[in-house]
């Protein structure tokens, strides 16, 4: 292949007159059989490199981590360059998947996007011997490396595949961000001959600020303030799903057109992205589930309500702002608790060593499917999957095409490796926290962390300008403090296509609050009945938060073990509110306390058929009351039983909720 031929294709097929710096070099290197790693910022034109290869070579398989990302890239390839692109993923039913695969077999597809997990899908495996794949692309290649900001164990499969490909099959790996360490790791994994093209990382139009906040209320005030201050629309990142809902609710109450967005949402995520793209929302309050796939060049701001886990994460997330090159704002709200929050998330990101051993031991005894393993071990789906992928990665277990996992050898689980990763992550977190305090230009600080030593002072950040953001009105504080005190409950479950509960609140958080301490003492340390002041505060909260005149009665959740703690609380609350007390839920058998079960499957099994409703409810609107809510499973199960008995709208109220699941 000569450069002239490339130029012809570029002009005729893609409508460009010239390549950008490095694009041609990358294409030629890949076609010559070298493994290419492109580290270039978003917007540089990485996709053109593999779109060209697809145009020249034929069916090109693109591994991509997120369905949203695939969707956008498929659309872009089809619309802009008339390439025949498509995807096979788990959102599609089997017939749709089959139709796409058939077209691929018949040579009617140029670019096929799949997630790495697809390699172990039975339907895919049925087709793989007929797919005329001529080139392989690894999108978001940093996911291969444990040192990256988004390691995905399933990406390791791609590495094993790529190592089997002879030089006749071009392989291109692309990423926007890779530290020198990640780069080295990718190189070692994918193998020689290796060709790297690394671009400059500075984004001159991004204006970086750090703002200290010292309480939840102050954080809310600043968010409220910033949404008024900053032009256009943007993103507010939070560290957890719960926080995204909580922050979004406050901002909505303050009159902002915002919505929350996290991985727990289903199909409506696409609609929310579209609303943001059309500027119908001021902001999406999101976890890092939003990001890579969002195609909005005029995103004007990215605010972080909580500090992310590393400068790499931060750079990646703010990188979504201002792709059109216009000035955009990136504000990090720095709260002293962020360090603890992130440290906990890092430490809990990996299941405990004995959980690994338990799974491995079970699979040495007999082959099992995921559901059996889940029931047997009590691990959450996330933990279980992490363990399964890690054990597969270590070559200790495998999964066959009938979805059975089994041990394939007896060996030792390597925990040392994970300990090293953990320490590296904590080290990256320190670098992120040092960003708060650095006296250096903030953009330069981030670029240098990412391996770009060429970065100069940006001239527009709060350090370069030696000027922070204008402060909010003191009047905003009272409302924020009131809100920060009564958190919303984590509610899930659907009954006849409607959410089981209209809304739900806790009087307070469980950990580290006066109410939480009283509840803990009374419930678990036999500290007696709840003091009157708690009941009075609860009644005030219910009056403020719920449409009390639309509630017909108050229903307590029966306890798992004997003791009338919830009933006592609910009866006194009902009296205080002047609402009828209706203990219609009854236990049909004894259950274990929910906190003894660790995953949702087990929790639901524990309650299955254990509750019944003693009378028909004829559309009655009810406030369901419990003491402490953690996973929300109990409320969900109880709510469904009440709905089945004919209840109308349901509301939920608890004395306390945990900050993070499993804190009981």
């Amino acid at each position, binding site marked *: 292949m000569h450069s002239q031929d490339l130029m012809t294709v570029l002009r005729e097929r893609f409508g460009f007159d010239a390549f950008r710096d490095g694009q041609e070099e990358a294409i030629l290197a890949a076609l010559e059989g070298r493994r290419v790693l492109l580290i270039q910022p978003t917007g540089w034109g990485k996709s053109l490199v593999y779109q060209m290869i697809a145009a020249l070579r034929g069916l090109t398989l693109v591994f991509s981590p997120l369905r949203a990302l695939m969707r956008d890239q498929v659309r872009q390839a089809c619309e802009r360059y008339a390439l025949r692109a498509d995807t096979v993923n788990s959102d599609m039913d089997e017939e749709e998947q089959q139709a796409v695969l058939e077209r691929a077999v018949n040579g009617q597809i140029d670019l096929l996007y799949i997630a790495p997990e697809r390699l172990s899908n039975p339907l895919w495996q049925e087709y*793989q*011997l007929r797919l005329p794949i001529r080139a392989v692309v690894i999108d978001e290649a940093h996911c291969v490396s444990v040192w990256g900001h988004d390691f995905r164990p399933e990406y390791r*499969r791609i590495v094993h595949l790529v190592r089997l*490909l002879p030089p006749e099959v071009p392989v291109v790996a692309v990423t926007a961000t890779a530290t020198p360490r990640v780069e080295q790791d990718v190189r070692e994994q994918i193998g020689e001959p290796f060709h790297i093209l690394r671009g400059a990382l500075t984004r001159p139009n991004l204006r970086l600020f750090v703002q200290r906040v010292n309480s939840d209320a102050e954080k809310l005030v600043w968010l409220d303030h910033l949404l008024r201050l900053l032009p256009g629309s943007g993103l507010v990142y939070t560290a957890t799903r719960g926080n995204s809902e909580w922050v979004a609710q406050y901002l909505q109450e303050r009159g902002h057109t915002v919505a929350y967005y996290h991985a727990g949402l289903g199909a409506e995520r696409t609609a929310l992205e579209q609303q943001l793209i059309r500027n119908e929302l001021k902001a999406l309050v999101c976890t890092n589930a939003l990001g890579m796939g969002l195609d909005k060049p005029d995103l004007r701001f990215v605010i972080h309500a909580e500090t992310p886990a590393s400068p790499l994460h931060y750079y990646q997330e703010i990188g979504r702002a201002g792709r059109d090159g216009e000035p955009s704002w990136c504000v990090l709200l720095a709260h002293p608790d962020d360090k603890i929050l992130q440290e906990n998330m890092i430490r809990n990101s990996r299941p405990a060593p004995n959980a690994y051993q338990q799974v491995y031991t079970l699979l040495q005894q007999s082959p099992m499917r995921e559901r059996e393993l889940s029931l047997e071990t009590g691990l959450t789906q996330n933990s279980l999957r992490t363990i399964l992928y890690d054990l*597969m990665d270590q070559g200790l277990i495998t999964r*066959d095409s009938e979805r059975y996992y089994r041990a394939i050898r*007896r060996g030792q689980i390597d925990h040392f490796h994970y300990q090293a990763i953990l320490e590296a992550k904590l080290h990256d977190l320190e670098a992120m926290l040092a960003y708060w305090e650095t006296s250096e230009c903030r953009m330069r600080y981030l670029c240098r962390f990412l391996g770009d030593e060429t970065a100069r002072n940006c001239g527009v950040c709060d350090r370069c300008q030696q000027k922070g953001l204008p402060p909010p009105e003191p009047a905003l504080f009272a409302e924020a403090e009131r809100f920060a005190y009564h958190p919303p409950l984590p509610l899930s479950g659907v009954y006849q296509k409607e959410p089981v509960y209209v809304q739900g609140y806790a009087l307070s958080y469980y950990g580290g609050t006066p109410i939480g301490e009283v509840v803990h003492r009374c419930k678990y340390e036999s500290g007696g009945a709840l003091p009157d002041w708690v009941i009075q505060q609860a009644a005030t909260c219910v009056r403020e938060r719920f449409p009390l005149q639309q509630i017909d009665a108050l229903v307590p959740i029966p306890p798992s073990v004997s003791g009338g703690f919830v009933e006592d609380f609910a009866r006194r609350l009902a009296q205080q509110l002047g609402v009828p007390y209706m203990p219609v839920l009854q236990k049909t058998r004894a259950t274990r306390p929910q906190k003894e079960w660790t995953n949702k499957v087990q929790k639901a099994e524990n309650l299955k058929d254990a509750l019944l409703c003693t009378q028909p409810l004829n559309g009655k609107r009810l406030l369901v009351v419990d003491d402490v809510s953690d996973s929300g499973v109990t409320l969900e199960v109880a709510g469904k039983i009440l709905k089945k008995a004919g209840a109308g709208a349901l509301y939920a109220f608890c004395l306390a909720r945990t900050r993070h699941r499993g804190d009981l």
Partner: protein
Amino acid sequence: MEEREWVYWMLLAHGEHRDLRKRFRQQQPADIGAFLRDQPEWTQMEPLLTQEALVLHQFLQQGGQFLTCYHPEYPARLHDASAPPLVLYALGKLALLESAPLAAIAGSRNPSEEAQTQTQRVAQHLTEQGYGIITGFAKGIDQIAARTALEAGGIVVGILPQGLLSKLTQQLVREWMQPLNDDRLLLLSELHPLAGWSSGAAMMRNRLVAALAEFVVIIESGARESLKNGKKVFSGTYQCAEVAHKMGRTVYALDLPAPGNQQLLKTGIARRWGEPLEQSHHSQLHLFP
């Protein structure tokens, strides 16, 4: 990097290119990639590289091992077979092939009760004498022998007449997971991982059973050929005995009334199991109960 050459080997070994394989065996080129790129068949083969890589990847993820005839671990004894496999797929520990001398046990899929009892006796005895048992791992005699040897603390090698990713093999692997993981069972196949069972392949695998074994014990065999629904059918067990005999491996047959056994003894292909051996290296191992 050798891994990167594996799919070349797969295309060479499993394609429809008989002439190509012949040329390869004649030339024994050191660089298979360079060799293939020079061949007229290459234009048809090149587009298939990724597909084969996907299949091989799936197989390796199942804990499988891939071996070419150039690999140092490739069993030397296989060169005694006609057309020794160019590639081998293995599940289990390859070193089992070196850990004990192997004795083959062969017999029908639908054995008589007597044959089942005899299989257990023979397998038990050979295991006690320090032999590993190699079989075609079919239902009936083959698997009874395997089970007995494993229960007696021995090792077993099975040569499968289907690919190691086929549904049939996956069921076998789940069923025999413990001995596989205990490094006491090795399953081998020369076929493409996705190949299904075929009677042709079942016959072909006999040459590998015979080549890897020091000697073969026929438990119960049908007649060399017979008529079934008006069609001529050949007994796999009988064919195994013939192949082994031709290869110079000693063949024993139990003196059971089965027509194949009697035929083998009469033609001199097999010796009667239980007779003392002259100048055979197995004799010192007290072969007979």
